[in-house]
């Protein structure tokens, strides 16, 4: 087997001219003897090593150029500067070509930079202020999204026994009103923490001190708080110190221990937490009884953070946790629930477990789209450069004839393509900024909002690296051509001809572009169809003109007084002029929901199948069903008499749940056991239509309704329907709620339809991004195909001219051009359909109501690509018809 030609070309580029012939000869001789003695691979490796070492030695010794010794590195630099100058001059002389090629690369590199920015903001950046963000881990006790926790005594047992971890802490999330003095309260997110939370995360205080493990014990004072720097600035201003001061949280005086430094906003990206309180603060803030915090019924330690011992394998640490939980479960009859837990360690605090899989999946999808687009851009620019080097064959031949070395010409090609890539990179920054505009402030699921495009070091490094790679890819084909340059043939015919291997290469590049574009367009079409289907989903609930107002309510009053307050509040809202209807609910439709338990008997409550289905439990006031247009299909909905201070004995089921429980929907009068923590016996008074959740609308979501106010909640939501989003009526509602809840800030109302739009935002943004990339791809493929066909026509101009002269009709010539274009388009479409199938499998989880092999998307996308290909051929076809044989012959 011979020595790879590419290796020889690379070696001849690297090794200085002075001894190149002898060194290359020696290297090849050594290659031959090594290959005979030890085989081809060691011989190739020795050749490469020898060539690289020779190049470095000679260049550093200053033997790169005539004149001999010293300053080799300087000479090396000046050599490349000269190449750069020549490349710049060559591009400067053809600005249209340079702008077209750089613009093409800019689309690819800019899209890449935009997606990289998203990835950087979503997962790559370390969690602000958490020094242990890389080494710490999330410990989940059940599948992401399913609540699975430990009681306080069992969590303590786990903490004490898990020696694989340096530290362990649990945290929960709550929203609270915080105020300083008489100032208007601010609504903030609060972490309720237990254990050495700040030590596990490696957070340092910027003032005062942080909560320690002993501060979070139940016997310590619950009236202490650590605040974020942001909240400190909002409450105290940037100059006043906060530590030791008193703030009021839901009316309770809390002492500020210190301020978490480094911009720390909690252990989960995207949930901007502003305050951290000890576990015991649940008693005053949320009205929990102290017994409940330690009771065996209350397995609330579900969000756990751990700091593993240095060097410990995550799997081994996870196995240790499983072992400890098994021990706890076996030793204590009350801990049988522990055996149902399935602990899993998620190393690194990049993305919380719940969002990890879906975020990575979306980023993977976008990365693939960008790789496709960059490949299309590189293929396009390589094609343009090939086109140009063909046009410059005559000039190159003259250079070679005057003794310009082949390696130098190769190198110049590469430098020229680097120049283009650099220019493309700079222009790409603008493209990235434009792509990111609609993403600014938008969120993908629970992840943090995008900040828009910023020129920070990671993004600049990415685009520089991507430009470098693109430069190599674009320049490889023209450099390869220069390496195989046949001086004799070129001098015989200085006129460009698209022949043999070169023609095939250009055709192959065009086929690749069309294939990748088709895949992108199919992906975009599938997501657009998904979005369309999601918009048309009948959820069973009407949300038009319904706004939601949220407010904190006191927890330290007795249930009867709370019930009266709720009634009074709802009465005031309903009585406000312009209000067409109102109801109370804890969360409302399409938002967070309580999971309840329901069974036809007390013993069937633990039915695994029902629990896995995640039955929604809604606590609603009379009027809720009328407000949201949920009519009964059997029986009735709640009446005023059903809403009482004590737990009620009635329930309304959705049709799908009635079907699941009883196998029929006419179940009024039947008895079920239903509720949240403690289900009670209830009589079914009515069945309403199905409810479909917007996030997974493929199947109806089982749900049941109980009268409002069964458990005291620290907050409530008022849903108000006005005529045509009447802003005046909403302001009046807000003022009347505020007047009834002194000291409570009621945020601006949010329309439920906005929540729905937010839920669809993810698909909309992804679809928009894929469409933008597809449009770029279509544009580039069109240009690429135009280049190939245009060149084909140029090289066959004489033939076309003669045919026309001999009487061939125009349709015959058009047929010749059309057949060439059709061959390329069909080959591209064939490969593209396969690539599209692979891409649609990657985005399968994002699709709704659309098959991976959706005919409309595939046929539509293919038609679009064929139309663009057709348009790209129009100008070359016209040129073919105008071919003049005399002019063509004269050129030869």
């Amino acid at each position, binding site marked *: 087997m011979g*020595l790879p030609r590419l290796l*020889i070309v690379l070696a001849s580029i690297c*090794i200085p001219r002075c*001894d190149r*012939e*002898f*060194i*290359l*000869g*020696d*290297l*090849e*001789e*050594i290659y*031959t*003897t090594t290959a005979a003695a030890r085989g081809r691979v060691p011989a190739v490796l*020795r050749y490469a*090593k*020898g060539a690289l*070492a*020779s*190049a*470095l*030695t*000679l260049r550093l*010794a200053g*033997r790169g150029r005539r004149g001999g010794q010293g300053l080799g590195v300087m000479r090396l630099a000046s050599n490349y500067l000269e190449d750069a100058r020549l490349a710049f001059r060559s591009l400067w002389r053809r600005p249209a070509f340079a702008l077209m090629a750089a613009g093409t690369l800019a689309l690819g590199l800019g899209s890449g930079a935009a997606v990289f920015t998203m990835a950087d903001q979503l997962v790559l950046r370390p969690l602000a202020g958490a020094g242990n963000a890389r080494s710490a881990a999330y410990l989940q006790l059940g599948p992401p999204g399913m609540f699975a926790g430990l009681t306080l005594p069992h969590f303590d047992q786990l903490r004490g026994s898990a020696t694989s971890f340096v530290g362990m802490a649990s945290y929960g999330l709550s929203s609270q009103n915080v105020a300083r003095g008489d100032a208007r309260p601010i609504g903030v997110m609060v972490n309720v923490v237990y254990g050495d939370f700040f030590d596990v995360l490696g957070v340092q205080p910027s003032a005062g001190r942080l909560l320690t493990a002993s501060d979070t014990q139940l016997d310590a004072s619950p009236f202490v708080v650590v605040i974020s720097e942001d909240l400190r600035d909002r409450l105290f201003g940037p100059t006043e110190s906060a530590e030791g001061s008193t703030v009021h949280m839901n009316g309770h005086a809390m002492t500020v221990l210190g301020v978490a430094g480094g911009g720390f906003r909690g252990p989960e990206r995207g949930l901007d937490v502003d305050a951290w309180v000890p576990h015991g603060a649940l008693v005053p803030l949320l009205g929990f009884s102290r017994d409940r915090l330690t009771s065996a019924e209350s397995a609330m330690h579900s969000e756990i953070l751990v700091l593993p011992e240095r060097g410990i394998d995550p799997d081994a640490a996870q196995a240790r946790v499983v072992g400890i939980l098994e021990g706890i479960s076996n030793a204590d009859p009350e801990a049988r629930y522990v055996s149902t837990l399935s602990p899993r360690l998620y190393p690194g605090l990049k993305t919380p477990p719940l969002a990890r899989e879906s975020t990575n999946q979306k980023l993977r999808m976008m990365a693939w789209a960008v790789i496709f687009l960059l490949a299309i851009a590189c293929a396009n620019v390589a094609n343009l450069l090939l086109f140009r080097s063909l046009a410059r064959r005559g000039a190159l031949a003259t250079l070679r004839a005057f003794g310009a070395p082949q390696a130098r010409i190769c190198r110049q090609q590469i430098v020229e393509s680097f120049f283009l890539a650099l220019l493309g990179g700079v222009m790409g920054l603008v493209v990235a900024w434009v792509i990111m505009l609609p993403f600014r402030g938008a969120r993908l699921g629970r992840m943090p909002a995008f900040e828009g495009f910023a020129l920070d070091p990671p993004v600049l490094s990415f685009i520089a690296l991507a430009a470098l790679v693109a430069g190599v890819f674009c320049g490889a084909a023209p450099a390869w051509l220069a390496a195989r340059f046949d001086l004799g043939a070129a001098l015989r015919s200085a006129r460009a001809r698209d022949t043999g291997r070169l023609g095939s290469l250009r055709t192959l590049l065009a086929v690749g572009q069309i294939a990748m574009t088709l895949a992108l367009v199919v992906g975009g079409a599938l997501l657009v169809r998904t979005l369309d289907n999601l918009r048309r989903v009948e959820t069973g609930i009407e949300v038009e003109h319904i706004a939601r107002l949220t407010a904190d309510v006191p927890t330290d009053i007795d249930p009867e007084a709370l019930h009266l307050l709720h009634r009074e509040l709802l009465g005031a809202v309903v009585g406000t002029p312009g209000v067409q209807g109102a109801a109370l609910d804890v969360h409302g439709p399409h938002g967070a929901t309580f999971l309840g338990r329901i069974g036809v008997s007390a013993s069937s409550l633990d039915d695994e199948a029902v629990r896995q289905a995640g039955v929604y439990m809604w606590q609603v006031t009379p009027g809720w069903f009328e407000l949201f247009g949920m009519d009964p299909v059997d029986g009735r909905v709640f009446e005023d008499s059903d809403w009482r201070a004590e737990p009620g004995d009635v329930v309304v089921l959705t049709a799908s749940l009635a079907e699941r429980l009883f196998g029929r929907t006419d179940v009024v009068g039947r008895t079920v056991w239903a509720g949240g923590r403690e289900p009670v016996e209830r009589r079914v008074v009515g069945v309403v239509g199905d409810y479909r959740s917007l996030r997974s609308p493929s199947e109806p979501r089982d749900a049941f309704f109980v009268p409002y106010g069964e458990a005291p909640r620290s907050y409530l939501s008022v849903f108000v329907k006005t005529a045509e989003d009447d802003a005046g009526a909403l302001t009046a509602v807000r003022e009347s709620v505020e007047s009834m809840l002194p000291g409570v800030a009621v945020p601006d109302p949010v329309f439920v339809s906005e929540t729905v739009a937010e839920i669809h935002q993810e698909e909309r943004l992804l679809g928009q991004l894929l469409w933008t990339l597809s449009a770029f791809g279509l544009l580039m493929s069109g240009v690429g195909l135009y280049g190939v066909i245009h060149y084909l026509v140029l090289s066959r101009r004489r033939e076309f001219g003669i045919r026309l002269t001999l009487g061939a009709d125009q349709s015959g010539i058009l047929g010749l051009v059309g057949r060439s274009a059709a061959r390329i388009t069909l080959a591209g479409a064939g490969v593209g359909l396969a690539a599209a199938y692979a891409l649609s499998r990657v985005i399968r989880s994002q699709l709704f109501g659309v098959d991976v092999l959706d005919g409309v998307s595939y046929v539509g996308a293919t038609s679009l690509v064929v139309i663009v290909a057709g348009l790209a051929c129009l100008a070359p076809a016209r040129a073919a018809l105008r071919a003049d044989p005399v002019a063509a012959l004269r050129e030869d």
Partner: protein
Amino acid sequence: MALGDLEQVVLFAIVRLGGESHGAPISEKILETTGRDVSPGALYTVLDRLEGKGFVESWIGDSAPARGGRRRKVYRLLPEGARALQSWYAGLRDLASGTEAWLDRLAGEVS
């Protein structure tokens, strides 16, 4: 004139190759006898220096298919080079004489 470490090795390799040779066999000889893989670039830098000192002379030789049709640069040891090598080697021999037993003993102790 003093000889560098690699210069001595290269000169000895040329002597072992019959007094004249080109890059590839010199590299192979050095690898075979000392285990040192000297790249052609480094070798030509050394040979260039030796030629400057008048220890070797060079000329362009013929081409060969095994070299991809490229010509070779042949180096021959000159009397001045032979004398320098001889004198350096004699000095080394003087320096080393009588140390063998001691070296053997020390090497034995260490092992």
